[in-house]
């Protein structure tokens, strides 16, 4: 039976390895035919900022991999709007993630909708 699995990102990239680990785990999980989605809230929204250039600090820009998520069977990306606003950011500051058919994979949503979505999962893994 396929399970509804959510990967929750709550940390900024680069300062810790959590974000990169979350992506690795998500891509590994994508090989097992589950219903996967990924959520970004709190400091996790920083992972989606445009124009990251970690090469200056000799690190890999894994934010580029988000654009390939649909290839790995992950076609739902949820972002909590309150987390964006608290950080002085707006929707346009975030990278675009499109599905192969061109549709937008990113849903930016209010906390209450994020809450409902989380409540509907079978498995939640937080990073």
């Amino acid at each position, binding site marked *: 039976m396929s399970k509804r699995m959510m990967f929750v990102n709550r940390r900024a990239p680069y*300062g810790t390895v959590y974000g990169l680990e979350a992506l690795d785990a998500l891509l590994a999980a994508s090989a097992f035919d589950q219903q996967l989605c990924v959520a970004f809230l709190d*400091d996790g929204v920083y992972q989606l900022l445009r124009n990251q250039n970690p090469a200056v600090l000799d690190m890999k820009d894994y934010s580029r991999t988000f654009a390939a998520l649909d290839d790995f069977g992950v076609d739902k990306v949820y972002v909590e709007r309150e987390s964006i606003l608290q*950080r002085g950011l707006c929707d346009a500051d975030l990278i675009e993630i499109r599905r192969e058919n061109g549709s937008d994979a990113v849903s930016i949503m209010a906390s209450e909708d994020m809450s409902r979505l989380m409540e509907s999962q079978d498995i939640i893994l937080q990073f």
Partner: protein
Amino acid sequence: MLHTVNKTLTEKPSLLSCLRLAGAGSDILLIEDAVYSAIRGSTGARLLEQSRGKHQLFALGPDLECRGVKAAQLIDGIEVVDYAGFVALAVKNDTVHAWL
């Protein structure tokens, strides 16, 4: 004294403690994940704006660039420094207090 802060407010309240305890006239340098706190409109930026008269505020350029944060997104009164600037600040202030 030079104070450095390296975490976001969500990760740790170090910035709060630093702003509460850093002496008047001391320099505060945001590095690593703490550079996000300088983004205009953020919770961290509101705290920093209140302390602008009391401290000189700096943010480390390579950490901004790494994270995709542009100087234009920062609150006024933050000076962006490179590594040489970091060293110069450390030399000018004979004590560096790293808030972890």
